[in-house]
């Protein structure tokens, strides 16, 4: 799957600076340039970072943690998600600061290296399995070697700068297919299968149980100001501004395609007080010169026809006083709202079977 490949291989260029409080040599060490995989986690980069700074660290025990512009980064959130969330306008390379002392225990839960990350990952996997299958027996019953293989396939390219990822992706897919976590039926994925990857992906999808439930992690940050461009979007400076929603989505097959938009309506109903209105308005606003607003709520056909000439941009503005979704980012891209949700789920989910969605919502003051 091309999409799978992109998702798996995605990496963020980081420029990691050592916090000045921990610099003991002159001249201060240069920042470490590291490519962090999107589907990975920041603490796993510690072995790569330490060699850069080990000579300059003050004596003592090291507990690594990262922060971006003063905001300590939660380590159990995949790196890509963090990047999408905290950098509305993607900053490449992403300048984050690393600390080895002074772990902020009030903000971050403790992390003891790779094991903590691994258990967190497995936990998410269990959660996802529970949501999707109704029980997490399959994850609990995973053999030790399978667990290790799964983890290593996920993690292996975190450590090595070797992009022989087809193998790792295969390994991951091999092990994860054993879990028989049901997938969403998706007729679109096969359309765009690349020749190199069709074998596994198709059989996987073909042989698996189909479900309607999807595990979703939603990261919503709210802004109060209005902005036009992404660059002007204010960055979140505190976790309180970011709400973390863990909500499953049930895909309903009602003849029409269940789109991302529908999923968001399920997830954040408060943002869609009047669904049809929203859609209509959006369509109207955008294509006001082209379309005639229709009063008929049920004429979905028309709405959809209108949606055919869908906007290229994501942003949907609303003239009403309700919150509006400004930005939706999944795996660093901003897909169109009409995109079939099933495709999104099957192609853009993380190795822990969760779909991480970052949403920027403007709330009225």
């Amino acid at each position, binding site marked *: 799957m091309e999409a799978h490949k992109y998702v798996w291989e995605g*990496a963020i*260029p980081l420029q990691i600076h050592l916090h000045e409080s921990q610099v003991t040599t002159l001249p201060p060490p240069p920042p470490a*340039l590291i490519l962090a995989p999107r589907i990975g986690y920041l603490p796993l980069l510690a072995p790569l970072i330490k060699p850069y700074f080990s000579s300059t660290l003050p004596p003592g025990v090291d507990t690594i943690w990262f922060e971006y512009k003063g905001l300590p980064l939660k380590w159990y959130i995949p790196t890509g998600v963090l990047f999408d969330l905290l950098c509305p306008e993607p900053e490449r390379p992403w300048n984050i600061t690393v600390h080895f002392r002074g772990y902020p225990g009030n903000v971050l839960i403790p992390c003891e290296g790779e094991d903590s990350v691994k258990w967190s990952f497995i936990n998410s996997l269990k959660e996802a399995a529970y949501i999707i299958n109704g029980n997490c027996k399959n994850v609990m019953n995973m053999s030790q070697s399978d667990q290790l293989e799964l983890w290593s396939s996920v993690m292996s390219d975190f450590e090595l700068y070797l992009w022989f990822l087809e193998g790792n992706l295969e390994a991951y897919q091999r092990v994860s297919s054993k879990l028989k976590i049901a997938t969403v039926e998706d007729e679109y994925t096969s359309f765009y299968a690349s020749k190199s990857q069709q074998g596994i992906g198709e059989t996987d999808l073909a042989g698996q149980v189909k479900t309607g439930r999807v595990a979703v992690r939603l990261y919503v940050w709210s802004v109060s100001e209005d902005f036009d461009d992404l660059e002007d979007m204010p960055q979140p400076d505190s976790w309180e501004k970011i709400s973390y929603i863990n909500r499953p989505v049930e895909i309903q097959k009602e003849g*029409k395609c269940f789109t991302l938009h529908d999923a968001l309506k399920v997830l954040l109903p408060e943002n869609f007080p009047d669904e049809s209105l929203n859609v209509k308005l959006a369509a109207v606003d955008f294509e006001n010169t082209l379309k005639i607003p229709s009063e008929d709520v049920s004429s979905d*056909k028309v709405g959809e026809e209108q949606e055919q000439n869908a906007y290229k941009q994501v942003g949907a503005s609303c003239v009403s006083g309700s919150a509006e979704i400004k930005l939706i980012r999944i795996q*660093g891209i*901003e897909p169109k709202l*009409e995109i079939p949700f099933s*495709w999104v789920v099957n192609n853009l989910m993380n190795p822990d079977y969760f779909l991480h969605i970052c949403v920027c919502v403007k709330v009225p003051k």
Partner: protein
Amino acid sequence: MMNDIMESVESQEEIARETIKHALKALKKRHLVEEGAHAPAYIALSRPIISQGSEWKEKAEKLEVELQQCYKAQSRLSEQLVVEVAESRALKGSLQEKETAIAEMEKELNETRDECSRLEVDLGEKITALKLMMSEHQELKSQLEQLTIKAKNAEAENKMLVDRWMLQKMQDAERLNERLKASGLEKLAREQVEGIVRRSEEGAEFFAESTVPSVCWHRINAHEGGCASILKVAELERELNETRDECSRLKMDLEEKITALELMMSEHQELKSQLEQLTIKAKNAEAENKMLVDRWMLQKMQDAERLNERLKASGLEKLAREQVEGIVRRSEEGAEFFAESTVPSVCWHRINAHEASSSNNLFVWDVNSGRVRHTLTGHTDKVCAVDVSKVSSRHVVSAAYDRTIKVWDLQKGYCTNMIIFHSNFQSLCFSTNGLTIYSGHVDGNLRLWDIQTGKLLSEVAAHSLAITSISLSRNGNVVLTSGRDNLHNLFDKRSLEVCGTFRATGNRMASNWSRSCISPDDNYIAAGSADGSIYIWSIIKADIVSTLKEHTAPVLCCTWSGLGKPLASADKNGIVCTWT
């Protein structure tokens, strides 16, 4: 309506596909912007770190290996050190010992030195004493020389004086002669003078011989009785000298005898000691001998028991009765024909036993072909007696001078039983039922043995000297034993009592194995004698019936043919006679 639905479905799909395409494009763009753009640079930048890391790793590994080697070397060195320390301790200990030894030796040395000095002093004293003695000796020697010179001088004086006296006497004699010439007393005077001269001549001899000057001197002054006294003195002196000579001779003799005696005494002593040693040796040898004999006997008994046990367990044998029996029968009849050697026995076994006596084996010959059928080995000494069972011709017993009887099975070809006894066997005979053996011994006893158990059934003293042969009567009731005491006894088989004794004045046993035998009709006994004749007794009459003289050499054995006649006899020269 349907068209609308269809259209809407189609348009849905189109929308979906469009959006998906868009998403994929976005992903691609992201890839190009993010990792696509930055990866190469980052990889290039991180290589030094990685390579450094690997370098460090290599260095660390190398250092670890070196460290291990150092540890190993250290352990080796510490082991060596331990060894060296132990060695040095040992050396110290030995050094100490040596020092103490040196101190002791020094003390000894001082003591010996003192002794040495003492001995030197003694020696000095002794030397001075010796010197004194030597000087005394010298003085005595010189004295002796002086005395001898004096003696010589005295002799010379004596001689001179004698000559003077002689002259005087001659002059006196001449005067006398002149005076007496006329008177005719010349004769008398001449006689006197001659007598004097003779006597004086005699005396002169004695004077010449004397060595003691003082006695002579006195004697010359006393004229009248001078000759006699001189003579006496001379005689005494002569005697004294003689005795002295004798004395010295005797002394020498005595000394010789003493030395001889000493020599003899020492020889005597040596001989005595040698004799003691030899007696001791003899005693030891005797004791050893006894012990060995006992041990050997014991061993043999044990072996016999073991053999007996083992052989009893073996299965039944097949019978080739006819063949062996035939041989036996034929051999009985034609037994005399085998006795063509100097062997005393006529039994076919015996011949061969003796032929093979050097190897202590028994040979079983096939009468028809004349070849050896079996070779029975096992005896460790000369085989002296053999017999074949009358019941089953495959059982053979042999007795040897190794004090054993062996029962052989010709079918199997090996010894099936063994009996040991301390008194050596001289002859053997199977009983008629083939279950017991009669054996005659060197101690003169007749003994019965059970073949199967090897146990002694009974014994009876048959002769005062060794038994030379046993033979059974045809009916099997009577056993004839002959002994070196020149008696032939008949024993009743069941009661083992003597039922008849036969002797003859000229009848002497020719050898240790002389064989006598009973006639098949159980009426007569025939025995050979050393003088070459064969005596035949009648059992009923208990008296000699006839004497057969033909042989010139001692008759060693005789046997009756199974048919009643002829009687065959063999002598030492190898001649066999048959009598009808």
